[in-house]
């Protein structure tokens, strides 16, 4: 728009300029004509022209106007030229900028291409190097294996030739270890003594309370370590970053049926129950023991066995995840701390396992089991508790180790390795490596034991029993033990705790507290239980005033504790009872106690002494029979009657 306006203005200016130039040219040409006419005139006429001032003034004004017009035209031309120059400069500048940007882009693209090329070259170089290194390592490994095999063969031959020497060396090594342990103990003791002496010396030198070392303080030689809190935090954070473990557990019964479930690792200080997410479904994890959760029973087990991820539903930092990697088979075996069979890494020689595998995988599994010397085991499916699409084999006991096969990763778990390991299992395990006396661990060997290597328990050669366990005389007595075989060592302790427990009050009621079968009450321990007919609820003791009314109780008998020895059980209201049915029942043969002190008349008729006397007297007035009925009982009853009657008479007389 601006350029159009500028074009119109410049065009109109140019036209105006042309008109002005034309007018000026006509005026000049007329002037020249007139000048030439004047020049041609005679001197009279020239003088006449000079003598005309008006014509001169007009000519002067015309000359000035011409000069102004010319100046104005020049000015306009100059402006137009400047404007054109400015536009051209702007165009040039824009063109330069675009060219510069294009140039920069081109340079960057060239640099990027050059960098990519370099990176690719580097990657290719590193790949070539890695390949070369791998080849070199493979060659080195092959050479090392060949060398090791050769050496092993040589060693084996040498070992077979020199069994006694090996034994002697083993004994020597054991003795050296023992000596080293003793030396270590001696060194610790010496250090402790030196430290104690130094402390004593320091105390003696310093003296007084000012420099006294606080009680319980111990000098430490160790460097300041990391904060435990920080370490724990770091450990927890690591735990959260990595998925926690999931294991499969199985509970087979005698009928061949087996129950399967899922165990998820339980983080420290986690709640006893946890809701987690598995895909879009919620799963409840319930406490199995201190270290494991058990997933609530579900139909999704068959899907979970092929691999599953649980994620914590909770919000915040303490969120966990659990993962069971995808696999077509699981190997389960008995492990310490679990009551049932639990997932393990691989088969072990001469141990009992359960294999849970996909139904389409069972042929390959059985083929490998044949290789490792297992007796044929029938696979069992859903009818025996296996999840849908899965079968299990139980019990699987391999007898031959087999080397792993390259590219057969998952089935290599079914090929036991020959490494020897000492296994402590069974017994009554208390904690750490401690077993209860009388119930020691069963010491067995996993893997292949060298023929010339014996199992030693505390240095004594152990004897193998028929079931594959090893023992020595007294290996199950209280104490600490060390089991050794072919360089492997396991330690265990046998403890003999006492069945002493403190009494506490788990159940407390108004009548006392109960702990097990032990009762704590405020009742006098000398109180004896009494059982009397429910129809005779008034209990009389040998001392006047010893009277007890039994609280109501269901049944024909009343049993309870009474605060005195009961002699007689009387009906509740003797004067209104049926004498053919109700009797005076003897409970204990005790003669009435005689008191030498003068007895004051009771002020109230419901006092215990008054009731004691009145109850006996009322039974006499009613004429109730005695039970049992014999002369001794009648004599005893008369003695009580005399005592009660005499007391009543004395009170009456005293009262009159």
């Amino acid at each position, binding site marked *: 728009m601006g350029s159009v306006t500028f074009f119109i203005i410049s065009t109109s200016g140019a036209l105006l300029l042309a008109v002005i130039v034309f007018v000026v040219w006509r005026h000049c040409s007329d002037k020249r004509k007139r000048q030439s006419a004047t020049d041609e005139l005679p001197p009279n006429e020239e003088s006449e022209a000079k003598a005309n001032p008006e014509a001169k003034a007009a000519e002067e004004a015309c000359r000035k106007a011409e000069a102004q017009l010319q100046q104005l035209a020049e000015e306009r031309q100059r402006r137009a030229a400047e404007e054109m120059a400015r536009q051209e400069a702007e165009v040039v500048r824009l063109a330069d900028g675009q060219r510069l940007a294009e140039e920069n882009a081109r340079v960057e693209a060239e640099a990027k291409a050059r960098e990519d090329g370099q990176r690719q070259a580097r990657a290719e170089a590193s790949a070539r190097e890695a390949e070369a290194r791998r080849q070199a390592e493979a060659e080195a490994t092959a050479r090392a294996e060949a060398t090791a095999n050769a050496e092993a063969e040589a060693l084996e031959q040498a070992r077979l030739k020199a069994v006694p020497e090996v034994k002697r060396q083993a004994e020597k090594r054991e003795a050296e270890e023992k000596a080293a342990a003793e030396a270590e103990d001696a060194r610790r003791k010496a250090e402790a003594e030196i430290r104690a002496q130094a402390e004593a010396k320091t105390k003696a030198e310093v003296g007084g309370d000012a420099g006294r070392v606080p009680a319980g303080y111990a000098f430490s030689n160790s460097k300041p370590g990391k904060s435990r809190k920080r370490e724990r935090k770091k450990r927890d954070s690591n735990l959260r970053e990595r998925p926690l473990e999931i294991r499969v557990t199985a*509970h*087979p*019964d*005698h*009928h061949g049926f087996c129950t399967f479930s899922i165990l998820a690792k339980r983080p420290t200080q986690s709640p*006893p*129950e946890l809701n987690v997410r598995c895909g879009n479904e919620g799963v*409840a994890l*319930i*406490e*199995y*023991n*201190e270290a494991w959760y058990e997933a*609530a029973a579900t139909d999704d087990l068959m899907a979970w066995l092929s691999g599953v991820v649980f994620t914590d539903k909770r919000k915040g930092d303490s969120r966990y995840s659990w993962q069971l990697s995808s696999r077509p088979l699981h190997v389960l075996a008995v492990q310490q701390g*679990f*009551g*049932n069979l639990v997932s393990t890494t691989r088969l072990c020689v001469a141990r009992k396992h359960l294999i849970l595998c996909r139904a389409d995988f069972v042929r390959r599994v059985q083929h490998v089991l044949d290789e490792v010397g297992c007796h044929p085991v029938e696979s069992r499916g859903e009818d025996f508790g296996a999840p849908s699409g899965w079968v299990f084999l139980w019990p699987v006991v391999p007898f031959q180790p087999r080397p792993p096969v390259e590219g057969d990763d998952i089935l290599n778990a079914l090929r036991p390795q020959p490494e020897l390991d000492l296994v402590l299992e069974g017994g*009554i*395990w*208390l904690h750490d490596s401690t077993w*209860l*006396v*009388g*119930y020691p661990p069963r010491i067995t060997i996993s893997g292949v034991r060298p023929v010339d290597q014996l199992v030693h328990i505390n240095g004594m050669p152990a004897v193998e029993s028929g079931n594959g366990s090893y023992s020595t005389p007294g290996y199950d007595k209280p104490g600490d033990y060390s089991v050794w075989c072919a360089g492997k060592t396991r330690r265990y302790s046998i403890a*003999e*705790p*006492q*069945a*002493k*427990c*403190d*009494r*506490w*009050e*788990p*159940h407390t*009621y*108004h*009548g*006392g*507290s*109960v*702990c*097990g*079968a*032990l*009762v704590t*009450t405020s009742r006098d321990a000398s109180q004896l*239980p009494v*059982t009397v007919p429910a129809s005779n609820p008034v209990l009389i003791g040998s001392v006047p005033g010893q009277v007890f009314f039994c609280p*109501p*109780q*269901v*049944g*024909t*008998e*009343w*049993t*309870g*504790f009474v605060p005195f020895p009961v002699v007689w059980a009387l009906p509740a209201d003797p004067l209104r009872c049926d004498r053919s049915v109700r009797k005076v029942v003897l409970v204990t043969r005790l003669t009435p106690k005689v008191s030498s002190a003068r007895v004051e008349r009771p002020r109230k008729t419901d006092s215990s002494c008054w009731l004691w006397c009145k109850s006996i007297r009322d039974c006499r007035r009613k004429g109730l029979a005695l039970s049992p009925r014999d002369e001794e009982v009648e004599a005893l009853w008369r003695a009580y009657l005399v005592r009660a009657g005499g007391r009543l008479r004395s009170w009456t007389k005293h009262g009159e």
Partner: protein
Amino acid sequence: MGNNEILYWLSANRAGSWAQFRSAVEDLVPRGDEAVAGPDRPYLRIRFNIQQLGHVEFFEHGCENGWRVAPPVLALSEQSNGVVGILCGARLPNLIRKIEEVADSVRREQHTGAEHPDVFRLVGDHASDLEDVAQRAGVLFQPYAPLSILSCLPRVLDLKAWNSNESPLPFGRDTNITRFELTKRSCRWVESSVEDAKRARDGLFRVTRFQRREHYLRLNGRTFRVRSQVGNYFVAAVRRRQLLRYDRTACQLIVPDVCRPPMLVDRALILCSGFLPRHDKETSTLTYSDIPEGIAGKAASILCQDRL
């Protein structure tokens, strides 16, 4: 390994969590043993039996989150033909050996059961004989244990004395509710709902959440959280239903199996003989043996039963 070993393990460790107990039972009880087969997990039944025999306390004051072993005690019970001492509480092999050494003046009996530790009974003529044995063996002595336990207990109608406090009914998605139905001929749990429980003016409701049972008693529109057995007998007492039956000739007390007496009453009845009640599946009853009539009457009075 068996049930005795479970008690040894518990006695050696003295206290622990529920998870430890469960793990120990599964570890020590033979897998697949027909004796422990049943609808419930074996550790639940073994826990119950060990608790009723007075060996271990579970989830009570002093062991709120697990279990704790009671002190070893010789619990005395009077029988018609003498006195019987039952060995309760902590038990270890060395204690058994010690008792066998010193119990020369009394008769020793050892009874093996399916889902509980062996019952050790010492039978003598006088209580002093058993007291002497207990003293020499270094265990505590509890004379007249059944009556002593029953004498501490309040009647079931006294909810406050049974530590039953007013509590709102629970709710939630995973809540399963059943109602205790008590008729003249039967007593059973029937399906119900939270709405029914809230609407009901009276009744006993069992709420199951996360495999845990809680019992709530509705009484005049108010809700009390109670122990299951206390609730059962409370309802029976209010409706005057007779649940106990006593056989005087056989000295047996018979109760419906769904109405087992409260734990301490049950323990007192068991300590009369030392044997767990016999369960009759056909009649759905539990039979306690060697129960003197006075003890049966005392138990019936606590349970607010009108007659035997």
